[in-house]
């Protein structure tokens, strides 16, 4: 066979690999890599969901390994992950919430009905703090180290698998640091 006649086949094979690879990785397309990884947490000071008179300051995130979870009562997939957060909290994971563009009454009702896994939740009514955190789809979960640096970001609901295989081992690792 002449060498030249193989060329279209080779190109075709290359294209197949490229396209099939794209299909297999398609679920990651939505995951925009966060530029905030290995950066300090964006500063904020917001009223707490639990008590609007009290403030939740981002400085409190320093000194321990914790999760910051962006949630809202109107967010359907937050419902899916809520049980997982409750479970993680029972395991002793410190979870801080940022309640994103929500009514306080709705947020409180949500916590009452489904349990409150959060140490505390900040009330980000206009979503301005959400922009600083690069939030583009709730729920989002950040892993924060002792120095208050963001070490990992999970976009979308956290499932049991994500918790067991990625988040819990990472927390353990960061606690040893």
């Amino acid at each position, binding site marked *: 066979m002449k060498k030249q006649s193989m060329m279209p086949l080779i190109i075709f094979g290359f294209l197949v690999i490229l396209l099939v690879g794209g299909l297999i990785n398609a679920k990651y397309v939505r995951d*925009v890599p966060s*530029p905030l990884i290995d950066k300090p947490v964006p500063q904020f000071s917001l009223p707490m969901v639990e008590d609007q008179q009290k403030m939740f300051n981002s400085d409190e995130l320093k000194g321990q390994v914790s999760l910051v979870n962006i949630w809202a009562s109107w967010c359907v997939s937050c419902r899916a992950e809520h049980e997982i957060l409750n479970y993680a909290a029972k395991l002793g994971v410190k979870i801080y919430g940022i309640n994103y563009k*929500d009514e306080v009454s709705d947020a409180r009702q949500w916590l009452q009905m489904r349990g409150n896994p959060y140490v505390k939740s900040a009330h980000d009514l*206009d*979503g301005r703090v959400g922009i600083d955190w690069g939030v*583009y789809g709730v729920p989002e979960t950040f892993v924060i180290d002792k120095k208050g640096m963001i070490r990992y970001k999970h976009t979308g609901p956290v499932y049991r698998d994500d918790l067991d295989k990625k988040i819990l081992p990472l927390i353990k690792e960061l606690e040893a640091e």
Partner: protein
Amino acid sequence: MEKNIKQSVFTYLLLILFCVGALQVQAGPRGAPKEPIVFENAQVESDYLELAEELRCLVCQNQNLIDSNAELADDLRREVAKMLKQGKNKEQVTDFMVERYGDFVLYNPPFKAQTLLLWGGPFVLMFWGLFAMLKKIKAGKTENSAESSELSEQEKEKLQAILNNK
């Protein structure tokens, strides 16, 4: 005939009911009702329009801020407008977005190691195509001139045999 009309009226009623129902269950972020974005300075407005065209909506990822009707796009449009009104220039606004959402937010990403394939790829492909084409043309030319269309002795005999058979 009468029956048909009744049926279609019924169908329409059902349709309206469904639409009303859909309005009820529509879930989304809540917050204070929003004012339209107004500009007093024409330059600021044109800067705003340019930026809103160049920045990507993170929710509907194939739309820019100006096209997208997503809640986040609206928030980001307002943020862009606010920053421009405060006297920040376009570059500062772009940097602000990139710091939070990464290069992905730009429809016109910067040229760097990560985007080398993106920017260079088309040119590599184009030159490769040109090269292949020129090679082919050249090969065709030499083939035509070198290999004459005359038949060899053997072929002539074969041809004669076929013609004779007829």
